[in-house]
C-alpha cells in the first residue's frame, strides 16, 4: 500500500495534464465538429470505399 504515496500524486499530475490538453484541444476547435472527421478517413484514397470502387468499375474509363 505504500506505493500509493507515489501513485496518488502521479495521478493528480496526470489528471491536471489531461485537463490542460483538453483545454488546448477545445481552444483549437477540435470538438466543434465531431461528425465530419469520421468521414475524412474515407478521403485518403482517390477511390473512396471498396464496395463503391467495385460498383463503379463498370462505368470507369481506363
Amino acid at each position, binding site marked *: 500500500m505504500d506505493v500509493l504515496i507515489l501513485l*496518488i500524486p502521479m495521478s493528480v499530475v496526470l489528471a491536471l495534464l489531461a485537463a490542460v490538453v483538453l483545454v488546448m484541444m477545445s481552444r483549437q476547435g477540435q470538438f*466543434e465538429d465531431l461528425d465530419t472527421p469520421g468521414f475524412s478517413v474515407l478521403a485518403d484514397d482517390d477511390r473512396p470505399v471498396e464496395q463503391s470502387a467495385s460498383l463503379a*468499375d463498370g462505368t470507369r*474509363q481506363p
Partner: protein
Amino acid sequence: MKVVEAPVCFHCAAPLPAGASWRTEVGGVSRAMCCPGCAAIARTIEAAGMAGYYLARDRPAVTPPPGAAAATVIPLAAGAAADQSPADQSPADRNARDWRVADETQFAASLFDDPAFQAAFVHPPGQAHLLVQGLRCGACAWLIETALARLPGVQSVTVNLASTHMLLAWDGRPDGLSSAIHYLRALGYDAVPWDLQQMTGSSAPRDRREWAELLVAGLGMMQVMMYTLPLYLASPDEITGGQLRLMQWAGAALTLPVLFFSARSILRGAWLAARARHLSMDQPIALGLLAAFAGSLHSMVVGSGPIWFDSIAMLVFFLLSARWIERAVRRQAAVQTAQLARPLPARAERVASHRHPAGSCSVNSLQIGDRIRVAVGAVIPVDGQVVFGAGPVAEALLTGESTPVWRTSGDPVLAASLNLGQVLEIEVTALARDSVLARLRTRMEEALGARAPLARLADRAARHFVAGLLLCGVLTGAWWAWHDPQHLLPVLVALLVVSCPCALALAVPATLAASSARLAGLGVLVLRGHGLETLAQVRTVVFDKTGTLTQGAANVTAHWLTKDAQERGQATAALRALESGQGHPLAHALLAWCAAQTDGAAATEGWDWIRVHPGLGVSGRRAGVDWQVGSADFLAGAGVALPGNAPDVTAGASEAAPAAASRVWLAQGQRVVVRFDCDDPIRADVAALLAMLQAQGTRVLLLSGDRPAAVQALADTLGIREARGGLLPADKQAILQGLQGSDRPVVMVGDGLNDGPGFATADLAIAVGPVSQALIRCADLVIPSANLATLAAAMAEARSALQRMRQNLAWALAYNLCAIPLAAGGWLSPWQAGLGMSLSSLLVVANAVRPRRGQSWMC
C-alpha cells in the same frame, strides 16, 4: 445491365413523379431519378469517382430546386479527368474543365470572384468563409471536402457539419472561388458568404471556452470521485492516516481547477452582480460552492469534519451541462434565423449621378434616391424601385411566392430578391438598414430576446426567489449557530446548493428558443415575444376571406356592358391606373386581367386625383371624367345605377355567376361600363385547419369586406358557423373588440394589408402572405408561404411549448418547496443537495427542449 426499380429517387428519396424517366448510372447500376436536377447531380458525383457517398450517407440529399434542374450539367470533361489524380494533369487540362450550372440559385458564381464582394467573407486573403446549404449528414461534408479539394488551385477545404461553415483555402487565382462554387452547385449544394462579423466574431470563442470548462469539470468530477470513493467504502481502520490525508489533498488539488476554471463564470457572475448590488441566480450557488470548499479545506487541515470535494465537482459538472444544453438550443434558433435572412451582398454598383461618380460602393453608404445597377443572377441589395429594365425577379424569401414575378420600371423590388432576367437599374427607396429584410431580421431577433409574459413572470419570480433564499439562509444560519454550531456549515451549504432557480430562469427562455426555431423551420416567423404564448392559448380565430381562406381572386371574367371597342380600351386603361399599387388581392387579379388585354395601354399620367376607399373601392378623375371601381355598395353610394340589379347584391346571384364569386364594377361617370366576376378558389389546406380548430372547441369566425352572399357561400362550404360580409375595416375592429370581452385571446388571420385596425386590435395578428414593411409593423406572426397547414402545426407546437413551460414552473415550485425546508432542517447532506439540484436543472432543461411526441429533435 441490371435495372433497379425503386419507387423513390435514388438521389434525394423524393417520390418519383408519374412518368419520370430520368435515370443515371451509379456504380454500374441504372438508378431512377425524380428530376433532371437529381440525375445531373448523381452523374457529377459518379463521374468524380465519389459514388461512395451514396453508401456512406445516412440521409437522402436535398431535392434540387426546380429552376436549377434543366441547366444543372455535370463536368463536361469529367469522365476522363476523374480517373487521373490531380497531380498528373497539366494546368491547361484542369482549366479545360468547364462546369455549366444554373446560376439561378442565389448568387451568380462569377460574383464570388469580385474582390469587392470577397471583402465580406475572405479573411485572411486566400481563405474564404462560406455557409453551405443543403448539408444533411457527415457524408455530405465528406463529399464536398474531397471533391472540392481536387479542383485546381484549391488548397484545402474544411466543412463543419454542425455550423454548416466551410473554410476554403485556395491559391488566390482570380477564378478559384467561382469554379469551386460552380462545382459545389453541380454536386447539389450551394454556398453563400458567411458573415464574418456577425457569426464567427461573436460565438466561436465563447463556445470553445464553455466546452473546455465542461470537459475539465467532467474530468475533475471523475478523478475527485476516485479519491473519495475508497473513503466511503473502507471500514474505519482500513486506510492509514497518511494515505487518507494524501487522498484528501489530491481531491482538493483537483477541485481547484473545477472551481476556479470551470465554475469561474458562475463565480464571476455572482461577484459582478453583487458589486452592482443586484441579486442573481448565480449567487446562492457561488456562496454554497465557496462555503463548501472553504469548509472542506478547514476540515482537512484540522483533521476532522466533513469533506465535500466530490460534491462540489459533481455540482459544477451537472450545472454546466444544463447550461450547455440551453445554450446549444439558443444557438440553433439563431442559426435558423440567420439562414432565413439570406446574407446580402456588401457592395453595390452605383450609377453615375450628380452626387456620385459611377463605381462600386458599400451597400450601407447608399442613400435614398441613388441608382444602382443589379447584374443578372445577382441579389438585389436594397429595397428600391425599378427605373430601367424589366425582367423576372424571384422574391421567394419574403413573399413565399416560388414563381418569379415580372418587374418593370416603376415596380418596387425588395432586398434579397434575385434578379433573373436582365440588368436592372434600381432607385434606392430605403436605406440598407431600413429594408424589409433588415426590419424582419431585427424584429425576429428582438422577439427571440424579448421576454414573453410568462418569461417575465419567471424572471421576476427568480429574483424574489434568490432574495427569499438568502434571507432564509441567514435565519437558518442564526438558528443553527444558536442551537447546534457543529452542523451550521453543512446545513448552510445544503440550503444554498439545493435550491434550484434554474428551473425559473433557465427553462422558459430555453423552451421559447427551441419552439421559435421549430416554427421558423415550419415557415412561421415569430415577430413578437408574446406570439408563441398567445398562439397557444387561442380561443377565437377570426379569418379574413379573400387571400386568406381563398387564394385571392384568380379567375376574372369580364361582363362588358358596352360594345364600343374604344370605350373598352379606355376602361381597361383607367382600371389599370386605378388598381396599380393597391395591395388588395382583387386588385392584383384585376391588374393581371388588364395585363392580359391587348387593348388599352396604361394611362398612369394625367389623373387629377385617385382616392382609395378601404374595403370599398377606388375612385379617381382624369380629364374631367370620374371613374369608380369597387363593390356594388360603393357604386350605389356614389349614385351609380347598377344595370338590371338593385344595389341589393344578393340579387346578382341569380345570374350566371356562382354565388362564391366576388363582383367588382367599373363606372365611368354615372354609367357602369363593365362588371367583373372574380372567382376565388379556396386554399387546399383550409379544411384541415378548420377541422382541427373546431375539434379543439376554438370559436371560428369569418369576417370579410366582400358581399355577404359570397361570404356566406364560402362559410357554408367550409362549415364555418359565424360569418359576416360587407364589413368595413372599422366594423371588423368593433366586432373584434366585442369578442375580446368574452373569448380572449382573439387571433386575427389575414393578409394584413386591408385590416390595419383589426390587426392592431387583435390579441395576436397573423399575417398570411408576402412580408412587407407594413406587415412587419402590425403583425405578430407571419407565414410568408401562406400555407395554412403550417398554422395548424404552429399552434400544436405553441401549445406544447406552453405546456412544457408550465410543467417546468410547477416542477420548480414543487421541488423548491420540498427541498428547501428539508435542507434548512438539516435532513439533507450537501452531496444530496448538490445531486438534487443538478438533476432538477437537467430535468427542466431537457423538458424545455424536448420535441413534441412524434416530432424529431431537429426541426
